[in-house]
């Protein structure tokens, strides 16, 4: 193959990755600023928002399909991230904010994408009036829309932890669970509570278009746990240095494919290319699991002792390989460990072998947090808030993004299952600690920002 510049083996390696190891581009996400869509009435804002999104991203799906076909790499999702809605519609009443959410939903539907993110507010230092109205609108907005995703940033390393906001989120999550009780409380799967949220994350449900971003931008989220899994399985019992090197090589190739697809999409959509997000994103499909990668390193089951160390190695090696592959790396960039979206995690949870406590420890060394975890429907709001506070503390102190996406499944308890279908997956409900955190959460106020010096 002297004209090809690469060998037959390399060509077949790529084909193999797609055909047998589920290499795909998880998402091409177009970020769109809605700052120029404000207006005097909610109806005006709804029209402007709908028009702008459908104008800028009307071709997104067609372009993605074209590129996937030409390069032979599937693009699983096309998504939109918009300016946090609290910034453009926070002055309206609760039911009007719901109307704006519905306009986003219609726009997403009309261009044929599955999720649109940005029903968001930033309250890490304090909750403004616009933010309060948005938070109050969340239960109805998430119950009345299918494709809209919400996120609330409640803490940051510079601002500390807004415990008032966290207490409010505990109650809000409960309300959303109740409003969407008929569908396994699916509304909660569309809401992320963040610490140190990033402005260019292409992954749902936490994507939004930050105010530091350009008018519009194309961000790409890659996938590929299956590719890493196969590389590790083929390698056998090598030492950790070799293991890291194998993961780096696989991550490099995946990231390069992602960047080519992102740049091509950007060019064809005539929208600037932003970043590639180097996250390993699992799916409920067999062979596409981050948990199984950890097990391939030599752990009998994800969640056992050694899981945190294995995940730390994986996360770091993926970043090193990916950072070499692209000049513009951003977003969350780390391995995801959702429960209901990862086949190996689901299997471990089914046997009661992965706990909330171990998952929390693992989030200290990876992206992005306690994700897609169904807990009993009668979990008190204060306990949900305390779980969020723990996760925010990990993010604040370690200067990283953490997030919580808990599903207190209404009318269900430990051992019952929730099933969301599709990429959101299914999982058994796992137990929470039943001792109360109520007095702690009800104190109110903020946990101060940590020192940035004296770091030992």
């Amino acid at each position, binding site marked *: *193959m*002297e004209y*090809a510049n*690469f060998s037959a083996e390399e060509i*077949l390696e790529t*084909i*193999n990755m797609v055909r047998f190891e589920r290499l795909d581009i998880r998402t091409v996400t177009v970020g769109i600023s809605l700052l120029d869509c404000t207006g005097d009435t909610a109806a005006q804002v709804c029209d402007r928002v709908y028009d702008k999104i459908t104008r800028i991203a009307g071709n997104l799906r067609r372009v993605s399909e074209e590129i996937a076909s030409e390069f*032979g790499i599937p693009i699983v999702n096309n998504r939109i991230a918009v300016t946090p809605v609290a910034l453009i519609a926070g002055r309206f009443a609760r039911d009007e904010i719901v109307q704006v959410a519905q306009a986003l939903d219609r726009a997403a539907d009309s261009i044929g994408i599955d999720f649109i993110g940005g029903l968001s507010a930033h309250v890490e230092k304090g909750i403004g009036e616009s933010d309060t109205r948005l938070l109050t609108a969340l239960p109805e907005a998430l119950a009345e829309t299918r494709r809209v995703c919400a996120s609330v940033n409640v803490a940051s390393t510079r601002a500390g932890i807004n415990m008032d906001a966290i207490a409010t989120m505990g109650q809000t999550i409960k309300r959303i669970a109740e409003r969407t009780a008929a569908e396994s409380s699916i509304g909660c799967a569309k809401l992320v509570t963040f610490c140190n949220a990033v402005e260019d994350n292409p992954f749902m449900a936490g994507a939004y278009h930050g105010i530091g971003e350009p008018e519009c931008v194309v961000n790409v989220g890659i996938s590929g746990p299956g590719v890493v899994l196969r590389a590790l399985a083929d390698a056998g019992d090598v030492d950790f240095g070799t293991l890291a090197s194998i993961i780096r090589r696989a991550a490099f190739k995946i990231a390069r494919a992602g960047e080519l697809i992102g740049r091509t999409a950007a060019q064809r959509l005539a929208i600037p290319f932003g970043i590639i997000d180097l996250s390993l994103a699992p799916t409920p499909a067999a062979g596409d699991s981050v948990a199984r990668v950890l097990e391939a390193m030599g752990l009998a089951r994800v969640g056992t002792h050694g899981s945190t160390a294995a995940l730390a190695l994986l996360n770091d090696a993926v970043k090193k390989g990916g950072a070499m592959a692209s000049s513009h790396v951003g977003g969350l960039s780390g391995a995801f460990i959702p429960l209901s979206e990862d086949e190996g995690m689901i299997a471990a949870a089914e046997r009661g072998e992965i706990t909330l406590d171990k998952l929390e420890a693992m989030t200290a060394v990876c992206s992005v947090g306690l994700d897609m975890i169904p807990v009993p429907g009668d979990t008190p709001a204060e306990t949900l808030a305390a779980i969020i506070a723990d996760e925010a503390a990990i993010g604040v102190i370690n200067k990283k993004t953490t997030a919580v996406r808990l599903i207190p499944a209404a009318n269900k308890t430990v051992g019952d299952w929730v099933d969301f279908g599709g990429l959101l997956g299914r999982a058994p409900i796992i137990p929470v600690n039943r001792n109360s955190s109520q007095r702690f959460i009800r104190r109110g106020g903020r946990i101060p920002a940590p020192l940035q010096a004296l770091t030992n």
Partner: protein
Amino acid sequence: MNQQPSQSAARPAPPPGNRAIVTIIGPDRVGIIAGIANVLAEANANIIDISQSVLREFFAMIMVVDLERATIPFDALRERLQTKGRELAVQVSIQREDIFKVMHRI
């Protein structure tokens, strides 16, 4: 299916940019390369290199194809190749060359 790399190897390579890789995977049998080459010829796509290898238990035939003077769009060519592939009971894919370049070369 025991062809050596094609004679075209003696000609200068066409400029890169509009090349694609056609991969044929399936059980080995008579007429596969002829069938696929015929589809490419009808579309005026020039085969500039062929090799064969093994992917898991299957034979894999790889062609480097120049699409500079192709008379039909990429999508249409892909569909024709896949239709022919179904007739021949093999899986045929066509991908722009760039994807291999970026994944395997720095």
